[in-house]
């Protein structure tokens, strides 16, 4: 499958501050999550993709073209920036109509109404943007990115500042945009669980570099060598912990009031053996969970590794 984004040795810095540092990355069609903490370089990467800034070193290609000083490519991309970027004294309808006309859309009024319905804003599209909630502004920004039916959607932190219900709706919307309308979507966030709910394809950015990219399962495979922390809660867990220390893959045990935290080297082996050992010890395990069973831990491990 041909990549939609290819970054080769891509660097960008602002004075002494490094935005991207020799980034090498390929993004394939579908939904891809760009994940990293604040300052990782996500927004810098998106601005380079959109041709808003110029690479200092290296190259970036978007849909086979270089974006800097190439406004023609903008007809193929829809961009939702992480900052507000909206004229507060205009109505949502006027704003979307402007974007549609700038993008050369025909049948502007109908298309504006259509995208307003897609993002669930048809009832409020005639109101001034200044009176919108954060979630509504995010929706209008997404609608603006969609209005010209681009091949590729770039959504920079689209969930930022939205309430839990709004986040759920936006996550469903982003999934539907790919599933039902065929948009390729690149979405960034530092709220890692939510990225995981949108896609299994991720690229992890840290300090301007891509430290891992691919399917989340493949990335997990990379970290299998790293220790996992498993919490066990219930009666008889101290006795159980003592027994578990006999296993080669258990590194250490930390005791709490009614729980123990087991540090294990090979989590698959641990979870395979654990039911038998628990039964053997007749312990009353009420709950067992991995502290590392989410994207944050993947990220932490890769960064520390």
């Amino acid at each position, binding site marked *: 499958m041909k990549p939609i984004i290819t970054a080769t040795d891509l660097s960008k810095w*602002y004075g002494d501050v490094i935005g991207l540092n020799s980034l090498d990355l390929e993004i394939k069609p579908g939904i891809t999550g760009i994940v990293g903490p604040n300052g990782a370089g996500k927004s810098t990467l998106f*601005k380079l993709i*959109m*041709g*808003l*800034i*110029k690479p200092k070193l290296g190259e970036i290609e978007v849909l086979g073209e270089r974006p800097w*000083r190439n*406004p*023609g490519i*903008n*007809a193929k*991309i829809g*961009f939702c*920036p992480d*900052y*507000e*970027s*909206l*004229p507060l*004294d*205009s109505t949502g309808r*006027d704003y979307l*109509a*402007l*974007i549609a*006309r*700038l*993008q*050369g859309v025909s049948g502007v009024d109908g298309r504006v109404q259509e995208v307003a319905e897609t993002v669930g804003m048809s009832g409020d599209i005639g109101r001034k943007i200044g009176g919108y909630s954060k979630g509504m502004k995010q929706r209008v920004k997404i609608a*603006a990115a969609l209005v010209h039916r681009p091949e590729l959607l770039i959504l920079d932190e689209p969930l930022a500042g939205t309430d839990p219900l709004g986040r759920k709706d936006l996550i469903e919307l982003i999934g539907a945009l790919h599933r039902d309308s065929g948009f390729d979507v690149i979405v960034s966030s530092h709220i890692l669980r939510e990225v995981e709910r949108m896609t299994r394809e991720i690229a992890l950015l840290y300090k301007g570099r891509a430290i891992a990219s691919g399917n989340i399962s493949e990335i997990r495979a990379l970290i299998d060598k790293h220790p996992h922390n498993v919490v066990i809660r219930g009666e008889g867990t101290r006795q159980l912990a003592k027994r578990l220390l006999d296993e080669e893959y258990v590194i250490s045990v930390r005791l709490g009031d009614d729980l123990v935290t087991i540090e294990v080297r090979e989590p698959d082996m641990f979870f395979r053996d654990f039911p038998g050992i628990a039964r053997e010890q007749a312990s009353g395990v009420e709950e067992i969970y991995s502290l590392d069973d989410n994207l944050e831990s993947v990220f932490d491990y890769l960064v520390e590794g």
Partner: protein
Amino acid sequence: MNLEDLRGWIALVQFLTRRTLLNRRMLIALACAILLSALVAYAVAEEMTGLDDLAGMLDIFVLSFFLLVIPLVYGSSILRSDLEDRSITMVLTSPLNRPMVYIGYRAALFICVAVAMLIITSAGALTFFALAGVESGAIGIYVNVCLLTLIGAIVYSSLYLTVSLITKRVIYFGLFYAFIWEGFVGLLPGGIGDFTIRHYVRSIGSSWIQYGGLGSYQGSGLLNSFLVLAGAAAVLVALGSYLLHVKEIE
């Protein structure tokens, strides 16, 4: 530029013009300027009612004051505020190339300044006519001053818009330029006045209007003045287009 780009460009100009003209702060500023213009005309017409007085009033308050201030008021914010809050992003991520985007802002600014200047000039002139009557030649003076404000609006708004791409403090630059450079340094004896926009606007005015201070103004000639102003506007537009073309939106 294809037809779709042209439609997009027109939509941008319409959007910016409407947004700027209907902005509440701009409307308040315009209302104050209209009131001031009418008040000045009232004060002048109370004592002086000749064509020299009408031409002098329009020269001092319209060409030497409002024509410097109004382009600054609009020109310091129309593009700069969009760069500051980054709402220009959605325009710069459209297929329209950046020089055309700049010229779109430039066109919208000119329309706003022209509309404001025509209203302000008309408020003063009509107040004067209402109180002093309309002498033969008075309408000619009014029309010529309106044309001079349009010529001045092209150059002043080009200057402030281009400077707004260079510095965030365009308002300070504008105040310095309008009141220190044009209002003081440009009036010193010698040829230094030739380095002001106002000199060339008044030079054209002296060829068109034979009354008041304009009538006796030692200008640089009609054609020369037109060429200098047209050249300055063209250079400023080219410079602004280039600056936006190479600007990174961080």
